[in-house]
């Protein structure tokens, strides 16, 4: 590196050429031959440059940032575990330590030496520190000749360079033993976000003397933070899949000690190092530092120039995507900008210098200008920035003022259940009643579990597995049939999408509409707000700029559910279903290029396009993440395999397993169709959950290679025809950068040999401007997909609020505001020339036209099927019913075997299904044009309109007829089957009793007393009559009359009457009649202690008779009047009076309510009962009387008369 910089400084090589040189292995035509010559000698070092530069910058800055927010990663150390192909050639040169200055023998020797070190089986290198070139104490620090510091404070001499000097530091020195502020590696910050895996970024780099394959990679390091070894044993389970990473670091102090030793050794061994430095001139100031050393600098190159040069090279590397993670570098730069220690007391002649961070920011202005409005505001208000570069500040302010990219705070959606859809969820979709009812219960258990999780998962000490595990497994245990599994998986997946997908939302809280809390409060209130927030919610761990993959919020529920269910079948079905849905969404037709029509109308359209794109993208990411989770679940472990042999055997095994989803093919398709902006983000989600072996497998390795290539190609500054839109690129850079930092992705994968990259040129269909060229990504989507970009803002905000920045200030949640289902778009089915013509037709029309036509076709096609069901099929079903009735009449009640009946009917009816196609065509022909016309703008040209209509008709017809021709027979069969079982059931005994029912008259206002009230009232009368009762209790005759009147009203108004109630009313009325006949109703008041007047009783019986005859619509159990029990009531009364019974019997016959013979039968059977002798005799007399006489009014007929008068007399009287 030093050599390169030297060339630059000597102006032998331009920065552009150097960066070109770094970026490409081959010479470029732009290169000046002289430059090429200067650089070609350095070729072995080329790949070392960027990692070295990054590590150098981190190392330099580490003094300034001891207590900053989560620190950006360092570039990988060059000797870190290689993802090399097993058996492949070792990667040479990595171990070489590049030196910033001078290109002497020592550096080239080191470069030459490295391969051998590597070949040595990655065991101990030539000396401690050798293994990690980037961390090596090359000539630099020696050259500087003191503690290099990133920012002010350079004045301090080496001896007084205590970084925590209170006079220089505004905030308190970090308390390293405070576990909360400096969590030990692998420990979990408290709070809901605690289930995250510590990523390598907070691992201090251990320079271990013994570094085996099994050691976790820790190449990206933090500033020197002491590991707290005592806390390491209690590393909780923090990874997304439930295994903590083993603590991977040694004490940094120890490490520093090693470095120091190494340094002094080198000083002794290679004097040329220092020599060369002095030759070059003054010690290099800190690259970001002030220029205090300058005055002592007699050399031709000033420190300032060097600083600017480094900043320029660094910026160029960022711009050319030579760094793995753009946002990480921005974060790093902002960290430097906001570092506490930079607020140094003005010390004598110390002038604020145009710090390198600001210079880098200037170079990255374009990216910054695309950040959200809040970040822009904080940047624009940053006083340091203003101080160092008023110009940049001005540009940022302008960008802030012009920005509409507000990313809103939104509430997480509360759970909404997946709705029941009869088409997929009703009984017909299940193999048996049992399966149907089991699934019914499972749905309820699932949501019960979900609700419980919602209520309790934030409670301290609550554990998913303990709380819900057994219930989940019990439920899964019931899913025996494969069909049930697929039902459950569908429910699971839909619920997952509904709860966790975070769409751009509908209306309300999308971009720039919701009030921005930060800007409303202003910076000065931030601290207060933050404290408030901290009190309200558990301190949120922000996860830093490179958080490991997590399952935030509701996703945690689904992950834990999968883990707790631990069901192989479920996982398999889930993978199948997720893969299918991913394929479906990934190939969804999304907006096509809009003609360059920038008026408001197309803007409105674009909002819709963006929203749809965002929904599809976010759904895909979610599904892919879960697919990755489930697919790699069996292989996932906390560590890579411990030995090479084991790794090789695992690789041999794994390379045979076909991927759960052919993501490589999908990626290639995506690139070819210029849909990387859709495909890559979900692919990244999928890969982020891969295990350690995956990147080593040929299949996935090739995917990574393609992704690397893509990453390199996404140069933000390139803006030409056919290029990807800026925010699209930014999104891809962000997700890819993030992926390259995932612990399971080999750290040096990014710095792969270019030879491979160049070989993988993807040929895109250049003529077509795919999704990549559409402005489909906005800031809201960017921040939703990459919440870690928000860390920039947190960093700035926490500086403003004066917080220690430990928790990164505010946690800005970008969460979905609504959950809306994905409108599935129809797959393109048309083929041939017509289809091509149709495509061509849409090509030059606004995308909304195409959507409209497709939408209409889809709906009309679907409606057509429904219509056929409701007309043709329904007709056939009613034919089936009448045929069945005939069958039943001819064959007797049971009609024969239902299965056979069904066959007969179907063979007669199914042929009629052929009409469905004709009718379907007619339907689509009739309905589609109107719908298209209604949905398209009035001004649509007639020709366009009619073409659109015709296409819609064609598509709708195709859809409907395809479905109908495949399914109509089965549909008819199913409906007829249901009708047959319905009809057969209706033949049952109860059906006859139902009969015809009348409603109430048209004029009825439904004011009649309620049946329940009447039953209750009559029950009271009955209970009074039966007793026991208090002496003062009784019924007034008026009340009885009123009651019967009400009964009549109720029976006439049938509004509230249901058959069971009417039946009970009928029975109660019979009981009441029996009590009247037996004179058992206790009458209120003293005058008539004996009971009702006979006349009154007779009147009441008359009313009852007429109710029975005219008003009851259910059969009245009149035979009960002659049941032994009711007749027996007469036995208890003295003197017995039979006249009312005889009267009643005659009236019953008279009114046709009972037949004579029926009554005779009842009376006959009464004789069989056990009665007192006198009662039997009286009964016999009554019987004879009834038999002998036609009806005649009998005012009084007493028992005495029955007995005393002989039969002749009675007869004569009658």
């Amino acid at each position, binding site marked *: 590196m030093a050599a390169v910089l030297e060339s630059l400084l000597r102006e032998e090589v331009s920065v552009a050429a150097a960066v070109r040189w770094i970026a490409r292995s081959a010479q470029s035509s732009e290169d000046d031959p002289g430059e090429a010559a200067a650089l070609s000698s350095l070729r072995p070092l080329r790949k070392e440059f960027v990692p070295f530069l990054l590590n150098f910058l981190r190392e330099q800055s580490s003094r300034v940032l001891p207590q900053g927010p989560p620190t950006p990663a360092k570039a990988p150390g060059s000797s870190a575990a290689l993802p090399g192909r097993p058996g492949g050639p070792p990667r040479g040169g990595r171990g070489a330590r590049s030196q910033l200055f001078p290109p002497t023998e020592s550096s080239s020797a080191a470069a030459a030496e490295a391969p051998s070190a590597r070949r040595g089986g990655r065991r101990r290198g030539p000396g401690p520190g050798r293994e990690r070139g980037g961390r090596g104490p090359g000539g630099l620090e020696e050259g500087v000749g003191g503690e290099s510091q990133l920012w002010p404070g350079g004045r301090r001499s080496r001896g007084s360079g205590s970084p925590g000097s209170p006079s220089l530091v505004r905030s308190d020195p970090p308390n390293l033993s405070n576990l909360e502020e400096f969590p030990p590696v692998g420990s979990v910050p408290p709070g809901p976000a605690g289930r995250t895996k510590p990523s390598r970024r907070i691992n201090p780099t251990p320079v271990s003397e013994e570094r085996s394959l099994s050691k976790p990679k820790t190449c990206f390091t933090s500033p020197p933070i002491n590991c707290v070894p005592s806390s390491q044993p209690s590393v909780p389970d923090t990874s997304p899949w439930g295994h903590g990473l083993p603590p991977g670091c040694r004490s940094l102090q120890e490490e520093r000690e090693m470095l120091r030793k190494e340094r002094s050794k080198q000083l002794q061994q290679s004097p040329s190092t220092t020599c060369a430095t002095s030759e070059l001139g003054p010690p290099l100031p800190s690259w970001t530092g002030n220029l205090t050393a300058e005055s002592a600098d007699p050399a031709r190159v000033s420190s300032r120039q060097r600083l600017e040069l480094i900043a320029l090279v660094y910026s160029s590397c960022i711009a050319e995507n030579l760094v793995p993670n753009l946002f990480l570098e921005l974060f790093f730069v902002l960290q430097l900008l906001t570092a506490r220690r930079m607020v140094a007391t003005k010390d004598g002649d110390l002038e604020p210098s145009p710090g390198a961070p600001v210079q880098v920011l200037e170079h990255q202005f374009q990216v910054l200008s695309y950040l959200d409005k809040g970040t822009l505001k904080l940047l624009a208000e940053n006083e340091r920035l203003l101080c160092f570069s008023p110009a940049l500040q001005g540009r940022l302010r302008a960008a802030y003022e012009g920005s509409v990219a507000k990313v809103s705070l939104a509430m997480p959606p509360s759970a909404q259940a997946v*709705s029941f859809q009869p088409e997929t969820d009703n009984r017909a979709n299940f193999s048996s009643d049992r399966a149907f009812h089991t699934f*019914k219960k499972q749905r*309820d258990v699932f*949501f*019960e579990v979900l609700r419980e999780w919602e209520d309790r998962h934030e409670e301290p000490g609550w554990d998913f597995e303990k709380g819900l595990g057994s219930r989940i497994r019990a439920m899964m245990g019931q899913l025996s049939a494969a069909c049930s599994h697929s039902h459950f998986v569908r429910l699971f997946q839909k619920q997952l999408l509904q709860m966790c997908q975070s769409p751009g939302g509908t209306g309300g809280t999308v971009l720039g509409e919701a009030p921005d809390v930060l800007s409303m409060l202003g910076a000065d209130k931030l601290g207060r707000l933050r404290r408030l927030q901290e009190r309200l919610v558990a301190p949120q761990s922000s996860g830093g700029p490179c958080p490991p993959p997590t399952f935030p919020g509701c996703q945690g529920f689904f992950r834990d559910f999968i883990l707790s269910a631990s069901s192989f079948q479920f996982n398999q079905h889930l993978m199948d279903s997720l893969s299918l849905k991913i394929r479906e969404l990934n190939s969804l037709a999304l907006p096509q290029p809009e003609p360059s029509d920038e008026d408001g109308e197309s803007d409105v359209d674009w909002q819709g396009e963006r929203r749809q794109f965002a929904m599809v993208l976010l759904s895909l990411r979610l599904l892919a993440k879960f697919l990755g989770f489930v697919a790699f679940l069996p292989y996932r472990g906390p560590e890579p395999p411990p030995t090479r042999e084991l790794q090789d055997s695992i690789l041999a095994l794994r390379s045979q397993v076909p991927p759960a989803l052919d993501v490589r093919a999908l990626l290639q398709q995506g690139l070819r169709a210029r849909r990387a902006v859709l495909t890559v983000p979900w692919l990244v989600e999928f890969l982020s959950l891969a295990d350690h072996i995956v990147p080593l497998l040929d299949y996935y390795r090739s995917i990574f290679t393609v992704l690397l290539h893509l990453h390199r190609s996404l140069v933000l500054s390139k803006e030409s025809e056919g290029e990807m839109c800026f925010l699209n690129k930014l999104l891809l850079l962000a997700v890819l950068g993030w992926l390259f930092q995932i612990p399971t992705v080999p750290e040096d994968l990014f710095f792969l040999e270019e030879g491979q990259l160049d070989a993988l040129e993807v040929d895109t269909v250049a003529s077509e401007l795919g999704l990549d060229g559409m402005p489909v990504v906005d800031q809201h989507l960017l921040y939703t997909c990459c919440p870690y970009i928000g860390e920039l803002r947190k960093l700035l905000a926490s500086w403003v609020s004066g917080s220690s920045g430990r928790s990164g200030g505010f946690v800005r949640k970008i969460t979905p505001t609504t959950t809306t289902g994905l409108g599935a778009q129809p797959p393109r089915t048309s083929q041939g020339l017509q289809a091509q013509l149709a495509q061509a037709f849409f090509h030059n029309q606004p995308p909304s036209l195409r959507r409209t036509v497709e939408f209409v076709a889809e709906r009309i096609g679907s409606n057509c099927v429904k219509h056929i069901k409701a007309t043709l099929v329904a007709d056939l079903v009613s034919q089936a019913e009448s045929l069945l009735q005939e069958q039943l009449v001819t064959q007797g009640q049971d009609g024969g075997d239902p299965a056979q009946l069904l066959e007969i009917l179907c063979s007669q009816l199914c042929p009629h299904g052929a009409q469905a196609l004709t009718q379907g065509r007619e339907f689509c022909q009739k309905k589609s044009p109107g719908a298209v016309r209604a949905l398209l703008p009035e001004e649509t040209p007639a020709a366009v309109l009619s073409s659109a209509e015709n296409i819609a008709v064609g598509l709708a017809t195709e859809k409907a007829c395809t479905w109908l021709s495949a399914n109509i027979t089965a549909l008819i069969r199913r409906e007829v089957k249901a009708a047959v079982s319905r009809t057969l059931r209706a033949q049952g005994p109860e059906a006859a009793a139902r009969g015809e029912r009348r409603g109430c008259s048209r004029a009825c206002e439904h004011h009649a007393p309620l049946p329940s009230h009447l039953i*209750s009232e009559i029950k009271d009368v009955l*209970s009074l009559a039966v007793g026991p009762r208090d002496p003062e209790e009784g019924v007034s005759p008026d009340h009885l009359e009123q009651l019967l009147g009400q009964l009549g009203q109720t029976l006439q108004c049938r509004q509230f009457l249901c058959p069971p109630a009417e039946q009970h009313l009928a029975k109660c009325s019979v009981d009441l009649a029996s009590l009247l006949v037996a004179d058992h109703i206790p009458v209120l008041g003293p005058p008539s202690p004996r009971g009702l007047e006979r006349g009154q009783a007779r009147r009441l019986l008359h009313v009852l008779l007429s109710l029975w005859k005219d008003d009851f619509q259910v059969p009245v159990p009149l035979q009960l009047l002659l049941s032994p029990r009711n007749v027996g009531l007469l036995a*208890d009364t003295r003197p017995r009076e039979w006249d009312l019974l005889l009267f009643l019997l005659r009236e019953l016959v008279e009114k046709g309510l009972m037949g004579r013979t029926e009554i005779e039968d009842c009376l006959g059977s009464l004789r069989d009962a056990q009665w007192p002798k006198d009662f039997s005799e009286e009964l016999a007399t009554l019987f004879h009387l009834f038999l002998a006489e036609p009806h005649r009014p009998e005012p009084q007929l007493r028992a005495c008369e029955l007995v005393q008068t002989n039969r002749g007399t009675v007869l004569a009287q009658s």
Partner: protein
Amino acid sequence: MILTKAQYDEIAQCLVSVPPTRQSLRKLKQRFPSQSQATLLSIFSQEYQKHIKRTHAKHHTSEAIESYYQRYLNGVGRNGAAPVLLELANEVDYAPSLMARIILERFLQEHEETPPSKSVINSMLRDPSQIPDGVLANQVYQCIVNDCCYGPLVDCIKHAIGHEHEVLLRDMLLEKNLSFLDEDQLRAKGYDKTPDFILQVPVAVEGHIIHWIESKASFGDECSHQAYLHDQFWSYWNRFGPGLVIYWYGFIQELDCNRERGILLKACFPTDIVTLCHSVA
């Protein structure tokens, strides 16, 4: 009639060990004149049912049954017209209808060759005329007409009340021009769980979205509400989203705590209904 938990407890306190008779009910109404009769009856009935559920087992041991049967036999042996069975039930603090069932079952076991089926017993309880023994038939009938918490008549009344309120609710929905699918239509479509009404177009009540309405012609106490939540309301929510439950006879105020979650309680048909506007005038 929405009661606070404290008000409810006060009423429930008065119902301990009160037999489910006409007379008890009358006294209760005198004690709480401000409460509606229907609410009181509903609370009474539910409290009594809880009591019976708790003590059910002890009345069904074979010793208990034997002892009841002997006491019954002795009683009717002395005087068949006396309310032997009813008094026995009140004495041992058990529902008269249920006591009648115990004795009837025991009686039939003794007199029939095969043990009586449930449906035969039910049928005899509905129509005691079918009971072969006249004295027992009268005793059973007396128990049934005097029991205001159990028995076929009470069941029918409850069923009728439920039905009437559904009809009432349907009328109100029609009157408000809210289109809906009722239980029967839903069942015909193959829904596995069916609230009384699903609104075809959701409305908002007091700011809460309502997709379905369930009518409950009873008082919503803790016990029944929990059971309903588990068996019905959450199941509806699981399928159709948030909804409204109308407890026509009131409920305990504190139970209306799931509004935000999607289950709203009311004691009457809501007046504040916001519907979707199709066009802004």
